[in-house]
Structure formats: C-alpha cells, structure tokens
C-alpha cells in the first residue's frame, strides 16, 4: 500500500482492482464499480460510502452485512484436550457446542489453521485428545474424520477444496460419494438430484451441473465447497476463512448458510482474520497467538469488541 502511495505521489496513474472496501477508501481518489461484465458507476470516492458501494456491487440493498441469527446452544459436539504439535501449537483445549458459532481469531500464523487441520486429521499430532459427543476419537486420516461428522472447509479453496477440472456435480458429491452407490455403480439420477438441490438452495450460479468449477466465480466456487460439505451431512463444520476472496453479496449468502446450519443444531467453528466478521457472526471467540490459546470471550461479554480481541491477539492481558 505504501508503494502504491509512493508511486501515486510520483505522478503515476494507478488502476487498483480490489474487493476490499476499506483499502479503496484509504487509497483511491475515484472508484469504478463493475458487475456481471458491465459498468455500473464511476464516482469520486468522497461522493460514495460503504453502503452505497455495496449496493452498486450487489445490485440490491443488503439489509445487513452480518445477518446474525442466534441459535440454541445444545450438547458438546467437540472437545479438545491438550492438543499439541511440536513447534506449532500446544496446550490447545476447548469445547464446541451444537447450535453455536465458535470463532477462532488471531493474527496470521497464530496456528489456527494448523489446529483445525490436526482435528480433521489432515496432519499428525504429537499429543492430546479429541472427543466427539463425549467419545474419544483417534482418526488415521480425513476419511475417518468425515465419517464421524466433521466437515473442513479449507482456506485455500482452489488448492484444497475443489477439483477445478471436474464438473460442479462431481465436486458437490466428492466427500460423500459412497452415499450414491447402487450396487457397484453410481446412481447418476440420484447424484443429479442432489447436485441440483445444492445449486438451488445455495444459489450457485452455473449454467448446468456439468460445468467445470474452474469457470465459476470465486463466490460460486466457495458455495460449491460448502455444498460439498453440507452433502456429507456433518455435525461439526470447520470453516477456515469462509469468505476470503469473495464479493460482498456472496459473503452475506455464506452467512445465511451458517445461520441455517446453526438452526439445524449443527456446530460451526469459524477461523477468520476479519474481526468485523468475527464480531458479526460468532457466539464465542477464542483468540490464539503463537500456537497457544490467549482468551475465550462470550458474545455479550464486555471484552467482545475489536480492541480487546486485538489486544489478546498481540499477547496483552484482558482485565
């Protein structure tokens, strides 16, 4: 950003493409909004505000940026005790309940993703225990974690969430393929129904279920990954940066999906680096720093605000 500013001072014209609205207000003098390949508006930045930009980008008024609906906290779905990975994290203990969004906040590199990968058995651990609904589990690989009802939406959707060269339908059933067997063969009409249902309920914009996912926009790709996990009928959904790199409209739709899951009594663990999102959607926040838990803050607590979460993320004491 400083480089961009310096270049600007040198009299160089800069076209800055971004969907991070804060950046635009900090950096730009004029703004152009495009939607679906068409020019919507060009204005001096001083003439527009965040809501106006969002409305122009989405094409309709978004009632709320974070449409949080409260769920009912139920039984303990996931309990983690003293989880440890040498040199990465240690002493990780927490519980996650049905009907709640538990957010993991912290700086990039604080070990949040690594903890989630360990719970999902994508990586090996060096100690600690994991319980699902009170039962000790010890998964060998992600396949077993999926069978016991864990879904893991990774932060890197192209590298770890999707098979870009394959059609939407295949990606939607990727994690639940054995459900669609009929004898030795796959039940194609069943797959078709499931894929079309996902596309309808998640409002995935795609010409057909046969389109390769590479061709979809970031937001629609993310919805395909979410659909993939919803089709596994999991109880515990780990969402790692679920709205990274997608436009504001798609973000709100992801939040609606989260609300829906919570209403069905599922448990969501959301790793997010965007504090407004954490504050907007979480029922409880765990703050991590340097591979350790720093704080656990309930919604409604006086620490449930941007300053105190940042303070904990930097290693400060909350008092």
């Amino acid at each position, binding site marked *: 950003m400083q480089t961009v500013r310096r270049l600007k001072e040198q009299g160089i014209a800069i076209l800055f493409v971004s969907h991070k609205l804060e950046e635009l207000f900090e950096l730009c003098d004029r703004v152009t909004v495009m939607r679906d390949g068409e020019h919507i508006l060009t204005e001096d930045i001083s003439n527009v505000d965040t809501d106006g930009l969002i409305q122009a980008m989405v094409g309709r008024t978004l009632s709320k940026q974070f449409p949080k609906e409260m769920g009912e906290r139920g039984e303990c779905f996931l309990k983690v005790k003293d989880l440890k990975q040498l040199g990465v994290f240690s002493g990780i203990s927490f519980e996650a309940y049905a009907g709640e969004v538990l957010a993991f906040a912290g700086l990039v590199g604080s070990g949040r993703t690594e903890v989630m990968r360990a719970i999902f058995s994508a990586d090996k651990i060096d100690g600690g225990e994991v319980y699902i609904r009170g039962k000790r589990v010890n998964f060998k690989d992600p*396949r077993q974690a999926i069978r016991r009802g864990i879904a893991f939406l990774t932060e890197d959707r192209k590298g770890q969430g999707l098979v870009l*060269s394959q059609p939407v339908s295949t990606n939607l059933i*990727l994690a639940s*393929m054995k459900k*669609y067997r009929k004898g030795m063969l796959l039940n194609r009409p069943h797959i078709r129904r499931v894929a079309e249902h996902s596309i309808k309920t998640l409002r995935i914009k795609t010409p057909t279920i046969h389109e390769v996912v590479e061709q979809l926009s970031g937001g629609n790709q993310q919805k395909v990954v979410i659909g993939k996990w919803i089709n596994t009928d999991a109880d515990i959904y780990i969402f790692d940066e679920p709205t990274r790199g997608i436009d504001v409209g798609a973000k709100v739709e992801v939040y609606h999906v989260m609300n829906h899951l919570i209403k069905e009594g599922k448990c969501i663990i959301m790793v997010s680096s965007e504090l407004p999102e954490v504050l907007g959607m979480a029922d409880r926040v765990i703050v991590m720093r340097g591979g350790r838990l720093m704080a656990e803050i309930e919604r409604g607590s006086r620490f449930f605000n941007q300053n105190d979460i940042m303070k904990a993320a930097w290693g400060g004491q909350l008092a």
Partner: protein
Amino acid sequence: MTQVRKKARIGDLLMKLGPLMVLAILYIIFAITRPGRFITMANQMNILKQTAVNCLIGAGMLLALITAGIDLSVGYNAILATCTIGVLMQNFGVSSPFILIPAAILVSTFAGFVNGTLLTRLDLPHPFVSTLGMKNVLWGVALLITASKTIGFTNKGIDSTLWIGRATFNLRPFGLTIVEGFPVSFILVLLVYLAFHVFLNHTALGRQIYCVGGNPETARLSGIRSKNVLTTVYTISGLMCGIAGVVLAGRLNTANTASAATYDTDAIAACIIGGASFRGGKGTIWGTMLGALLISTIRNGLNLFSAGNDIQYIVIGSVIILAVTIDVSRNKLEARARKLATI
C-alpha cells in the same frame, strides 16, 4: 456475442473430432495412393490385429495419465507376461491354458502392484521414477527367466493358449460375406473397453481417479484415499499388460525379450492423441481407441509404401510430438472457449 460463443463451440468440437478427421484424411490418402491394397478386407483386419495390443496396454496407460502419472514399464511388463508363458511351457512342461494365462496375467498384475506400491508407500516424487526403474527390473527378470533366449511357440502344444491372439472369425449370413478374418483379439479389446467405459464413468472409483488426477490434496481432504486409488491404477495397468502379453504370445508366436521397443511410446501416444493430458484429470477410453487406430493406420500405410523401420520410427516420433503440441494448444483453446462461454 452468441456468434463468438458459437465459434468457440465449433472450435471445441473440432478439437474433439480432430483425431477422427485425421484418421479419415489418412484413409483417403492411402486409398488413393495405394489403390486395391489399403482398402481390402484382409488389410483392414490386419490393422485391427495390429491395434489390439496397443489398445490393451493403452487402456492401462490411460488410467495412469488421468492421475497425472505415467507407466513406463508397460512394454517390458507385457513381454514378461509372454516370457512367463514361454518359460512355464519350456522349463516346466505346462500346456494348460487354465494355468498359463492366469499365471502370465498374475505376474504382470503383481508387477503393476509393485509399481503403485513403490510410488505411494516410498513417496517417490513421480511415477516416472518408479516405473522407469521397474521397466529395467522387469526386462532383467524376463532375460533372467528365459536365459536370454527366444522361445518359439509353434507346434508346442499350447495352441489353445495362443488362440486369443491368433484366431479370427468370419461373418457370412446367408452366404453373404460381411466380415472375413475379424481378429478375436479385437473382440477382447471391445469388451475390455466397454468395461473401462463403465468403470471410469459409472463407478465411484472411476470418478475418484479423475479427481485424484485433478487435485490429489483436495481428494485426500475429501476423504478419498488417494494412495489406494493410485496403487489400484498401476495394478490395473499391470493387469492390462498381462492380457496384452497373452495376446502377444499368439500374435508373435515367440517369447522374445527384445521385442518391447515401441509398446510404451505407442500407448502414451494413443492416449494423448485420444484427448488425455500429461497434466491429468482428463481422457476417455474411446479416444484412446481412436488414437491407437490412428497409429496402426499410419504404420500400416507406411508398410504399404514399403517404408522400413527407420522411416516408421521417425514418422511415429513426429506424430507423438505433434500430439503433445496439440494437447498443449488444446488446453489453451479450451480455456478460451470456456471463458467465452461464460459471457
């Protein structure tokens, strides 16, 4: 805009029908320049006979290519199967096809399983390494068990084993000759290819092979045991080599360790011409058949011009390079077509 889209779609279609059109053009050229010799029942059946082995090996190779891998051991694996039949016959006096055929197929399948295991359990960087190593190992084993000697099959009392590779049949309803001398080995190819078609498109494992090829990490994190899938792929490739080896025994009438020269490159070429890509994730079994037929037709045509091995190697080599070049530009074109299609 719709016109651009239409153009993109036509381009896409041309790419898919490309091999078929090249085949048609070759037919016309050979038919005109070699009148009365290329388009004859005997010669056409000859092409099918020559294609069968490549088709069988190519089917296994296709699976490896879909997973973004490669199996360089196929040629000597097939030869090892043929040599297994030879050695069992000569040194152990076995003549029953019910022992010879399963034994040959078992040996090759096991070699394929070793290929897959080396790749997945030793975490070797690329199947290039494990299968290239195995190619030499299998060649060595073949030399070892045959004591580096060629074993002839003529009049050795194992004709029933050689039947698949040798036999032909005629179709003459009401005395009207429709087909004469159709090779049984190509019937086998058709059955195998039908099975592959169902396997790749209608079974979970088939879909998973494409996904592991497209993105192994996504596949793993989606609960697919990528390593098991890969091991299965190379085992099936070995199985196909075994079947090809049995056909070879009947076709060549000898078990000769020096005859594997072009099987691996021919199989790779058939797959790539047929639409598979070194980058994995795509390819169809019927495309592979088309690719194999194309190669056989070129060889056959060159033979009719009495071109020697030297010229044949040069031409086939050029065709392989051309096919890979087309594959690369096809990827670019497809990306463009898709981009246009979303407008």
